[in-house]
């Protein structure tokens, strides 16, 4: 089928060709089913190549290189300086210049809070209130404590798996703070902070981790695969970057319904290598969809360092390749992230354009509880980022300097969260697991006959052999 596209191209590029030539290129049995589309008009980015005005003399390519003696060609019209190609005029040049794969200077990184917590810009320009800033800090601390305690719970064997967000607290919380609640979030898996900001409780997190009957996901997914329709946060799917096209589709639906909202998707540096990333960005640009693509460039994709993942100047330069406005931000600077996402959202909705944000940060923890990153990276590197570039510490310095926070409030908050978490874990552990019926529900909208049979058969079996099966699962 794809050769059809090229034959269509040939049909349009040459308007003085007889139809018999064009027809011979088409697969015979399709001839009668395909009618020639009408020639579109000339305006701007027209849908096909009718505006290709090359080939003035003949349909073969003519090079303007050294080997053509221009005096010998009889010319009735002046030489072309540029080509009126779809998308805009393209100037010709006799210089054989290959644009370099990289530029001398890397794309600059937007930062407003330095590593000592000092503001580099005028505080008025930031448009962040005390309430929002303090909530941001509180939630960053909550996230940090939550990660530590749940990680420990996994190590103790109480939950089967966990993934921390250590080092990326600013990305999680600050980006969420800059969005509104009806902006749809399509996470990868390292963004529970967005849920936290929107109101997901520690108990709800614990319920999902333990897969008990109060879990929103009804115990069907691995730990950290949170999802909440109420909070407009799509359920985490283990597959990498498949959420990127989902986001574009959701933005498309928002565009169709003219909603005053955008969608946002998060992914890592590794996720940017997938096919879905490229097609998602490309298509969102073509469709002019209000999406924010947020790349958490944390330097590692499990054990693959960024140098083995890509050779471009990070991910921010890829935005330009697809015609998308992009910015690189300091991923450990909560204020820069807040400010960038706020602006990106405004752009996305008002101008109906996708926006790409690359946040440079570091995955200070292991990839997950199934990983020991000291096996492939030096401990000093981890320490440098964990301490010196710590986003939580940095932001704390700034709000303390504003008089909005102090040591006492800090220790109260931390111990409060720890207590809540401990209670939540104990409570979640005690709750029953989802019943067997939940194994078969929601595969379809209504339970079909074959699944009903399978459920009945399973129930009968478990009833006959109760000693072989756990007692805390309702049959």
């Amino acid at each position: 089928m794809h050769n059809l596209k090229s034959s269509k191209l040939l049909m349009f590029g040459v308007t003085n060709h007889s139809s018999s030539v064009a027809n011979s290129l088409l697969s015979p049995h399709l001839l009668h089913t395909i009618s020639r589309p009408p020639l579109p008009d000339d305006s701007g980015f027209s849908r096909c190549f009718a505006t290709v005005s090359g080939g003035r003399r003949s349909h073969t390519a003519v090079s303007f290189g050294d080997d053509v003696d221009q005096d010998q060609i009889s010319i009735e019209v002046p030489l072309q300086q540029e080509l009126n190609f779809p998308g805009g005029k393209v100037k010709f040049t006799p210089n054989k210049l290959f644009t370099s794969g990289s530029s001398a200077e890397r794309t600059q990184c937007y930062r407003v809070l330095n590593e000592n917590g000092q503001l580099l810009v005028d505080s008025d320009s930031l448009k962040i209130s005390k309430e929002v800033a303090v909530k941001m800090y509180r939630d960053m601390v909550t996230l940090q404590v939550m990660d530590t305690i749940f990680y420990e719970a996994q190590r103790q064997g109480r939950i089967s798996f966990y993934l921390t967000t250590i080092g990326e607290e600013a990305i999680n919380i600050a980006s969420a703070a800059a969005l509104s609640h009806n902006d749809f979030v399509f996470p990868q898996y390292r963004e529970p902070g967005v849920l936290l900001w929107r109101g997901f409780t520690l108990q709800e997190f614990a319920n999902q981790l333990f897969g008990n009957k109060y879990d929103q996901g009804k115990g069907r997914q691995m730990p950290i695969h949170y999802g909440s329709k109420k909070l407009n946060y799509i359920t985490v799917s283990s597959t990498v970057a498949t959420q990127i096209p989902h986001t574009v589709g959701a933005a498309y639906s928002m565009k169709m319904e003219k909603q005053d909202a955008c969608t946002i998707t998060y992914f890592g540096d590794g996720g940017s290598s997938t096919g879905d990333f490229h097609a998602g960005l490309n298509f969102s640009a073509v469709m002019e969809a209000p999406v924010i693509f947020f790349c958490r460039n944390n330097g590692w994709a499990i054990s693959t360092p960024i140098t083995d993942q890509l050779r471009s100047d990070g991910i921010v330069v890829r935005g330009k390749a697809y015609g998308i406005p992009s910015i690189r931000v300091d991923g450990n600077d909560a204020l820069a992230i807040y400010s960038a996402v706020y602006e990106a959202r405004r752009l996305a909705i008002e101008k109906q354009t996708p926006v790409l944000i690359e946040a440079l940060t570091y995955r200070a923890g292991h990839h997950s509880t199934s990983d020991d990153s000291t096996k492939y990276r030096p401990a000093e590197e981890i320490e440098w980022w964990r301490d010196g570039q710590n986003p939580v510490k940095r932001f704390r310095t700034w709000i303390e300097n504003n008089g909005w926070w102090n040591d006492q409030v800090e220790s109260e908050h931390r111990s409060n969260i720890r207590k809540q978490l401990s209670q939540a874990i104990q409570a979640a552990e005690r709750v029953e697991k989802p019943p067997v019926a939940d194994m078969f529900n929601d595969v379809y909208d209504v339970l079909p006959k074959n699944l009903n049979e399978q459920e009945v058969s399973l129930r009968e079996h478990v009833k006959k052999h109760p000693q072989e099966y756990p007692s805390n699962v309702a049959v």
Partner: protein
Amino acid sequence: MASIFQGVGAATSLDTKKFQLSSLRSVTGRKASCVVMRSGGAKMDSGSNRISGRADQLVTNAVATKADTPAASTASKPGHELLLFEALREGLEEEMERDARVCVMGEDVGHYGGSYKVTKGLAEKYGDLRVLDTPIAENSFTGMGIGAAMTGLRPIIEGMNMGFLLLAFNQISNNCGMLHYTSGGQFKIPVVIRGPGGVGRQLGAEHSQRLESYFQSIPGIQMVACSTPYNAKGLMKAAIRSDNPVILFEHVLLYNLKERIPDEEYVLNLEEAEMVRPGEHVTILTYSRMRYHVMQAAKTLVNKGYDPEVIDIRSLKPFDLYTIGNSIKKTHRVLIVEECMRTGGIGASLTAAITENFHDYLDAPIMCLSSQDVPTPYAGTLEEWTVVQPPQIVAAVEQLCR
């Protein structure tokens, strides 16, 4: 039933040896109105405009006048004639008219009208946002459709050829089929994924795939295959109205089938099989293009004195074991005729399901005629031999009924 086959002769791009199927009336003496359309026990469609079963149609048309449609054809036959791809388009258009959330996305579906013209005219009518042209990235635009569905739209995703949807396998299996379940029922995915598949006329191996074999295992999806303009339109509408993800399999060679379909709105049941020809001696289960090979063989079989019961299973996932079971209990012999390959095809699953459920009713082992386990060759003769042909079906029935 008679009307379907009369129209086939007029089709242009089908088999060079035309379908010479004469009307059932002359062969068996049965009237067309004896066609049984079971509606009892079927899962009720939530759509309010559903008219179930052709038999109802045939009866009411004899009595009702078209007083409320003044522009109706003055010809004595009710309904209107169209080709299968037009029937698909009609179903699609009616649903887009009915529900503003229904949208289409795929390659060349917009201004071009689709490679098989199923979406012709829709972009002009509904705008090119609602009938969206996508870049060549099947996994990604399928993902887009899934994302749009999760946030409230009802997209129809067109694969230019079913084979291209192999690229979308990740999204279909891991997300489309799964997210309603893994999200605890929070997000539903009412997408329709459709496109032409099957062995065509020398399209080459890569464009002659039978994807129903590969998709049939995926939990959470439903699969249906259309074979006539009537069921194409009905299944298209049902699929769009369903809240589950549905894969609608069309066949490249059936798009130009002509049939007269009702003017009234109708929606078919996604999980029902279609009784094509009632009989007593053997149950022949088939779907899509093979239905026509079976009916051609049926003519020969009837001349030889056999009375085959032909069922177009239509619903590939789940199987309509009720209709199939009733048939087996009557005839005690089963022949499955499919275009899938022998290994792991629909026939293989159907054989297993029948053996499990109806073993006691069988007088002979189940026979299954499928394509060989080879990539479809390009050469016309070889391609013909890779698809089950009517003489093979006749021979199989003779062997089964010995």
